[in-house]
């Protein structure tokens, strides 16, 4: 499901003294199957953007094409269908868990949609497996008996079970410890590979954006401030800082490394800026310093 926005703006409370333009003249194209990260500080327009994508909001100016859906739409009916195909997992999605059992909670959307009961169980269990929760072990438990990370997984299963073509995740790791953080992002990356849908990750973390996404949109003041592959975007540190963001730490290290090479007139070759994995960086460093003796044993 391709996504195309043409000159889309969104204004809250238009025509009143409280009018606030949260999104300004955004044009972009996301081909189906891409893993996209949306980065930007609070108030940059990220939340408005994702609410437009699943039809919770409709553009006040411009048009959007999401698969077969054109927005603004005249009929409400189409929006419901759009919402089934564009799954949105809000921040802290576990706050919305409410059923007696994990299975019932994950099934909620399907039941609402009128999916026949005999089909529901299989889909629910498949969704639970997809997020790494064994349905036999956790299916009949109360969602509130799960750990924080497991609750987050159960809530994401509730979105995935609808089998959306586009999956939007608003800071899916907020509040999780480092292991839970990594586990959730690895799970999302695996689901993206296996299910071949479009994944849109909203994040504050430049590291996560660089490590997981194919393509980044940096939002600032309601506009798309920068876009491109991680290496393209991180070529311009000043522009990133103007958006109130920082380079990923690994990129900052590489920039400093290259700066030292330059100022020292060293013969060590500079490091490429497209390394986002620490092991790869360590390999590159080992290659550079072993030839020169350096400090290796």
């Amino acid at each position: 499901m391709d996504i195309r926005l043409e000159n889309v703006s969104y204004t809250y409370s238009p025509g009143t003294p409280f009018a606030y333009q949260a999104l300004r003249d955004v044009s972009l194209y996301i081909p189906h199957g891409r893993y996209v990260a949306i980065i930007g500080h609070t108030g940059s327009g990220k939340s408005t953007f994702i609410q437009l994508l699943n039809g919770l909001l409709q553009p006040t100016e411009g048009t959007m094409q999401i698969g077969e859906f054109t927005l603004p739409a005249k009929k409400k009916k189409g929006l419901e269908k759009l919402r089934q195909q564009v799954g949105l997992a809000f921040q802290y999605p576990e706050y919305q868990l409410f059923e007696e059992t994990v299975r019932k909670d994950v099934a909620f959307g399907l039941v609402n949609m009128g999916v026949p009961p005999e089909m529901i169980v299989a889909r629910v269990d498949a969704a639970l497996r997809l997020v790494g929760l064994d349905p036999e072990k956790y299916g009949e438990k109360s969602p509130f008996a799960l750990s924080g990370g497991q609750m987050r997984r159960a809530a994401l299963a509730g979105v995935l079970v609808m089998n959306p073509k586009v999956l939007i995740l608003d800071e899916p790791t907020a509040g999780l410890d480092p292991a839970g953080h990594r586990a959730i992002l690895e799970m999302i990356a695996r689901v993206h590979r296996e299910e071949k849908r479009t994944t849109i990750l909203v994040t504050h973390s430049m590291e996560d954006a660089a490590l997981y996404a194919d393509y980044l949109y940096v939002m600032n003041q309601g506009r798309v401030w920068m876009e491109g592959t991680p290496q393209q975007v991180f070529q311009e540190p000043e522009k990133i800082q103007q958006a109130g963001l920082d380079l990923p730490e690994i990129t900052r290290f590489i920039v400093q490394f290259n700066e030292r090479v330059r100022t020292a007139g060293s013969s060590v070759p500079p490091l490429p800026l497209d390394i986002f994995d620490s092991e790869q960086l360590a390999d590159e460093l080992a290659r550079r310093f072993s030839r020169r003796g350096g400090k290796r044993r």
Partner: protein
Amino acid sequence: MVDLTETIIRLNQVSFAYEGAEEKAVKGVSCEVRKGEFLSIIGHNGSGKSTLAKLLNGLLLPTEGSVEVAGVVTSDEEQIWQVRQTVGMVFQNPDNQFVAPTVEDDIAFGMENIGIPPSEMEARIIDALQKVNMSEFRTAEPNRLSGGQKQRVAIAGALAVRPAVLVLDEATAMLDPRGRKEVLEVVRRMNLEQGMTVIQITHYLEETLESDRILVMDGGALVGEGTPETIYQKVDWLRKLGLDVPFACDLQYRLRKKGFRFPVLNITGEGVLDSLWISD
């Protein structure tokens, strides 16, 4: 340089179980917090960090053992306000911490609670807002502020009470990178310039690098204690606990496996570069 020898909080074999819970959330923790130190507490979700924080100012009382704050035991009901005055707390969600329609009223609320005379409040509000760089927002509505600004107002509210210790319980968790930086700069400055003791609980390991000490919690118990340089040496152990190490420490860990030698662990990228170049 503050010498960190005076104890301000002492925990003696502290355990705590929530009502009806089978397992204790905090198990037999003994430790001392020194006056003027910047202390970080790390641990995975559910490791007991937040419970420990609430035990530090008597919001929770130990089911076993005792917590002493500046010589006062927190279970002493008659002196609980003295404990609360000594230890200020700022929590995770900036939206749940406001009770009043304006920033200044909100800051006044905390002072009313401990009986600061109204004649003194004005000066304290001005002072507290200045410390967190929020003076111009004195009459603003809290709900119109950004997350980082809200948390700085929450800190100002705590500071107006003039606590000797400020506890930040994941106070930056819901903020964006800019907001996190704003909050950390403020508390770091309070620590360095005013000698205020800071105890922060965080999942952002990068935020612990400037701490004097780090405490590591697991399963309700205190399982590790040391400077960032010593704690972040133990990469495998931390990962087993559901934690991780900051970027520079991870990089050195990987480089060491490839035969590099680092006489000491550098906790910043700059430090790693220095060692690479010095030996070059």
